[in-house]
């Protein structure tokens, strides 16, 4: 019994010490955070080694408690990002079954495991019986109380990240087929201009065939429009953290994120910018997007320039189709096609 008590004290003291003082040292900011897991494994190993050195042999029920407790700690605190509670319960059930298998591997260990429990129930451990038999009914009563207390959390609304674009969109009186629409200002490879200066280089003779000035002029104009209209939500850093961003739910798109403009085609952006939240499709509603329909404030060419700027600033490349002209022979959409069918201008 004394051995069990020592072991229990090591466990009860060790876990908070590890959690509050040692574990934070293992946290690195990088994505997968392998140091956390190394830290946890080292802690468990230390726990085992201390037991070996002190030649402690805690009773089976206590061993089971330790195994179960380490599992709980791992799933609730070590594993990041934290798993949803439904998954957590599933994992803990599996873990509990595993612990039980460990206990009941043969009749002797199971008997050993049972012994203290039986002794508690029949009253051979008098103090333990009093504590357990008083604590459990109070716990049940408290849980009942908690479950009866009315409690309301903000409802969760799930939505698709990228809506399906329509086949065609009509902007400023011109209909364009999104599948083949391209940005008329993407006349040069943008990587050649990553270090060029907006404002300063718009009159310089540089770039392939002297078109650098034109390219940077378009970027400058696009940036000007962005910083007069868009940065309030999408942010000065294009990271979706503008001054108004925290007001809205869902929050504005983060263009730095590889999951937004980096995986979209420019024609998709053109459609989203022109039509905004009200132009989103009926499927998968509600979108709750606060994005204004910018065609009301911007000309078609301005929208294209903003899109050009967004890619230049973030360094992402828009997704494109292969050059195969898949649209040849496609039917003309109702309402006719714009004067330049490829740019909607």
């Amino acid at each position, binding site marked *: 019994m004394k051995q069990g008590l020592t072991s229990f004290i090591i466990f009860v003291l060790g876990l908070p010490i590890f959690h509050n003082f040692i574990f934070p040292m293992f946290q690195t900011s990088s994505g997968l955070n392998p140091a956390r897991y190394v830290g946890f494994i080292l802690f468990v190993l230390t726990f085992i080694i201390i037991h070996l050195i002190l030649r402690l042999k805690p009773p089976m029920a206590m061993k089971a408690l330790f195994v179960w407790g380490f599992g709980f700690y791992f799933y609730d605190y070590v594993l990041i990002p934290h798993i949803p509670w439904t998954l957590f319960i599933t994992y803990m059930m599996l873990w509990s079954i595993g612990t039980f298998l460990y206990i009941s591997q043969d009749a002797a260990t199971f008997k050993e495991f049972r012994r203290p429990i039986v002794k508690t129930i029949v009253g051979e451990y008098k103090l333990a019986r009093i504590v357990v038999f008083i604590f459990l009914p109070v716990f049940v009563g408290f849980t009942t109380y908690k479950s009866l*207390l009315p409690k309301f959390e903000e409802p969760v609304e799930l939505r698709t990240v990228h809506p399906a674009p329509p086949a065609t969109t009509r902007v400023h009186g011109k209909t364009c087929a999104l599948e083949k629409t391209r940005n008329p200002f993407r006349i040069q490879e943008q990587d050649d201009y990553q270090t060029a200066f907006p404002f300063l280089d718009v009159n310089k003779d540089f770039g392939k065939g002297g078109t650098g000035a034109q390219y940077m002029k378009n970027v400058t104009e696009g940036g000007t429009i962005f910083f*007069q209209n868009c940065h309030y939500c999408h942010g000065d850093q294009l990271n979706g953290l503008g001054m108004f961003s925290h007001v809205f739910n869902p929050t504005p798109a983060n263009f730095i994120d590889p999951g937004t403009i980096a995986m979209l085609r420019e024609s998709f952006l053109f459609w989203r910018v022109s039509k905004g939240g009200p132009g989103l499709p009926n499927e998968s509603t*509600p979108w709750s997007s606060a994005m204004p329909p910018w065609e009301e404030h911007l000309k078609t060419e301005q929208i294209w320039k903003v899109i050009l700027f967004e890619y230049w600033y973030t360094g992402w490349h828009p997704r494109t189709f292969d050059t195969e002209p898949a649209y040849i022979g496609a039917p003309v959409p109702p309402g006719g096609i714009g004067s330049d069918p490829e740019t909607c201008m």
Partner: protein
Amino acid sequence: MVRINKVKGWGFLAILLLVFLLPATSFAALPDPVLKDKVEAGKSVYFKRCVWCHGVEGGGDGPSADRLFTRPRNFIQGTFKIRTTDSGELPLDANLIKTVTNGLPGSAMPAWGEFLKKEEIEAVIQFVKTLVQDRDFGDEDEEVNVQDFGTNPWGTQGPYHLGVPQEAIDKGKEIFIKNKCFECHGGEGRGDGNPTMKDDWGFPIVAADWQQCWNFRGSRRDPYNPFNIVRTISTGLNGTPMPNFREQITIEDRWNIAAFVNSLCPRKRIDPLANKPVSDFLIKSKYTEGPVSNNLDDPMWTAPYDDHKVIPRADDYEGDQYRSYVAMAGQITRGNRNFKPKVDNLWVTSRWSPEENAVYYLLEYHLRFLSTNPEFPDAVGIQWPGKLQDLFGAEKPYFIYGDSKKPVDLWKAEFMAKDYNPANAPKPEGYDLDLKVHEYIGNGFDAIKEKETEPTVQVVASKFHQGKVRVLFKRSLTNDNKETDVQIPSETFIPVSFMQWSGYDNEKDEHQALSTWLYTILEPPVPDSIYYMPPIAAAIFICFQGWLVWMTKRTRKMWDEGKMK
């Protein structure tokens, strides 16, 4: 006097940092000279990231400047707000690095610390220093005196810096009154003292609202740290009417005044990305037995603004209320867009009473000055889905005035304060409001109609006091206008949003501030079963325990008697 001009670059910075850390009186030194080898690298950062607001020549006149309040900094005169040097002096490199790294909360200047590399920030500030035309960082006559700020006498810790003794706060309040800080910052610190202030360039400027410390420009993403306030009192804010009080107030008392200012700011969980309190997207309406009080000072309506998880409710707090923080933005979608809203949050508190068959919403917000022009009255409103019963699932009308298929029901209170003039000293008892409620049906921006039915929405209490507006709306849960008016069920999540117009800044119609759709819910009363079910459950469990003991003993007996193997 310590003169340092031989040591270059990092050594120089390190020594200055050391000087800054020493708890001694101020040192006079030369400003950090421009590190010429970093200017080119800084220029490429500047022209990619900064030029859009601060302009090609650093004149604070980039494309966005006219649509920002406060305007971006004009670097040409070498005027920098947040420094550790004396009033009117140039900043240290370390000051500028901190400003770029942490941004200037409450303005459009974001924190660049996570976006740019450290070397890029160090380079860009060198380029910014070359944009200063009227002064020269290499001038022998320029002096920088790094101020002595003492140390936090209470040793409080972030993020909330709780545990400052009440005596320090009271002492600070005395100094606040003695030095007439209220002349600009207002009697309760909401920045509502002086409507005529201008910055060095003649642009209008307002005093800081101490009750929204997350907007302090120098808060360095640590809004509750009293050090920020000590620094500002000691160094002043260059380019603004804020002087330093180095001579008038001793360093100990500067910490006391910081304690007072800091105590006014509600402790809310701050979103580390937005640098603002986390918005409450669910407004709970408290169930009320009997009628609801129309008195705004009744315990039914008073509650601390602090998050109760950060500061537990005091023992002597009689009420049961929780306030919700609602973030607001300018309307920039249609018509006359509002890029510079003056109100960026509301506090909402609600109750409902089945006995009265009525629901109450108390809207509160900080506004420095009210309108005196009847053409542009102040206003605040609550927007509901007009036909809640027709909405399916999480469907909502368009968040600004609804759409053609899904109408909204808008309750708007337009008001002017009685006998009010922003230039006069405020009345100690506050101002009553000359108020009128309008009810609209919105079917989109171009289809907003005032209802023709009998008005059913009332404002039962309202007040403007020391830069705070309070308006208490009341309406019956249900009424006869089922086609146009929202019918409010209990225990259901109902979309709700808020709108606000500042008449003093000529906000009107679609030139307004607004929130997105939030939810509200009329909480049910606590069921009676909560009093008898827990003991019953516990009793049942005790019976189960008894059975377990009996069973175990019986099994053991059988075992002992050899009946089981």
